[in-house]
């Protein structure tokens, strides 16, 4: 087994389920946005504010944001362990992913709840 601090007791089944569930969430979010654009072909500021001002849209967007982060985390960790063999380089890359996703989520939350 690959054991390192970047690999704490990972379970393949939960990784696999995370990938599937997050993919479904992202699919639904995309479909929803497409449908919304269909009814609001050229949205102005008020249309945007109305959409993202509602609590459920914020919650849905947050869920999508977390899904992207989880999906990217599992996927990129897999890519790293497939293709990056030197442990130091791999761990550096994994650390960078964690940091980038963290920044992405915090920043995203700030944007969503700032509306």
């Amino acid at each position, binding site marked *: *087994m690959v054991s390192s601090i970047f690999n704490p007791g*990972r*379970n*393949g*089944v939960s*990784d696999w*389920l995370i990938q599937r569930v997050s993919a479904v969430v992202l699919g639904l979010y995309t479909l929803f946005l497409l449908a919304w654009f269909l009814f609001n072909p050229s949205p102005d500021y008020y249309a945007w504010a109305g959409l993202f001002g509602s609590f459920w849209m914020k919650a849905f967007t947050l869920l999508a944001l977390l899904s992207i982060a989880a999906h990217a985390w599992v996927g990129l960790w*897999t890519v790293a*362990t*497939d293709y990056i063999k030197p442990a130091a380089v791999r761990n550096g890359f994994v650390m960078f992913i964690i940091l980038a996703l963290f920044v992405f989520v915090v920043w995203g939350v700030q944007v969503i709840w700032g509306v």
Partner: protein
Amino acid sequence: MSKLQVSVYRYNPESDDAPWMQDFEIDTQGRDLMVLNVLQMIKEQDSSLVYRASCREGVCGSDGMNMNGRNGLSCVTPLSQVVKNDRLVLRPLPGLPVIRDLIIDMSLFYKQYERIHPYLQNDERPPSTERLQSPEDRDKLDGLYECILCACCSTSCPSFWWNPDKFVGPAGLLQAYRFLADSRDTHTRERLAELDDPFSVFRCRGIMNCVNVCPKGLNPTRAIGKIREMLVSHTA
């Protein structure tokens, strides 16, 4: 037009710094020979070439090799199936260390096979005669037990190339499922517990190279899907 240009991978770690390709011209006299026959003719020209083969009828699984880019058993692969423009390139199975010429070191392959405990495990008291199985339960082993461990599948699988020490690979997983599916085996839980990490089973990306090359027409991808189903339902 019956002269075949054959290019063979040569490597002798005792005398060669690096692998090289040696060219031979073989007169097939227009016959659709098996690739193994061509290798035998080459060996008459240059007896230093080494390869493995035994049964020469697709039973022992010892002559897996890469023929014009495709893994298969040389003894049951007719030239008409792989040769294009009278050219044939023979290389060892990819992804594992080469011992010499077309012979690879299969230790990692066997280690993965060993890991899945390829034998029946049953804690119940043995009956006085034999453990019976219904014809329906026996049918579940079809398409699984026929594997001859030739390694054509695992050495064509990119996931196995990247992680041969952690990903069991299609051949090992087909056998893992062969025992998971056996009604006489009582170690289902223990077997699954050893496979639930992110590598052993879940590195399969469903590329299906394995299905594409299996000389026995088996389907490791389907077996891997079944194991995944079992893992998910046993965890949930």
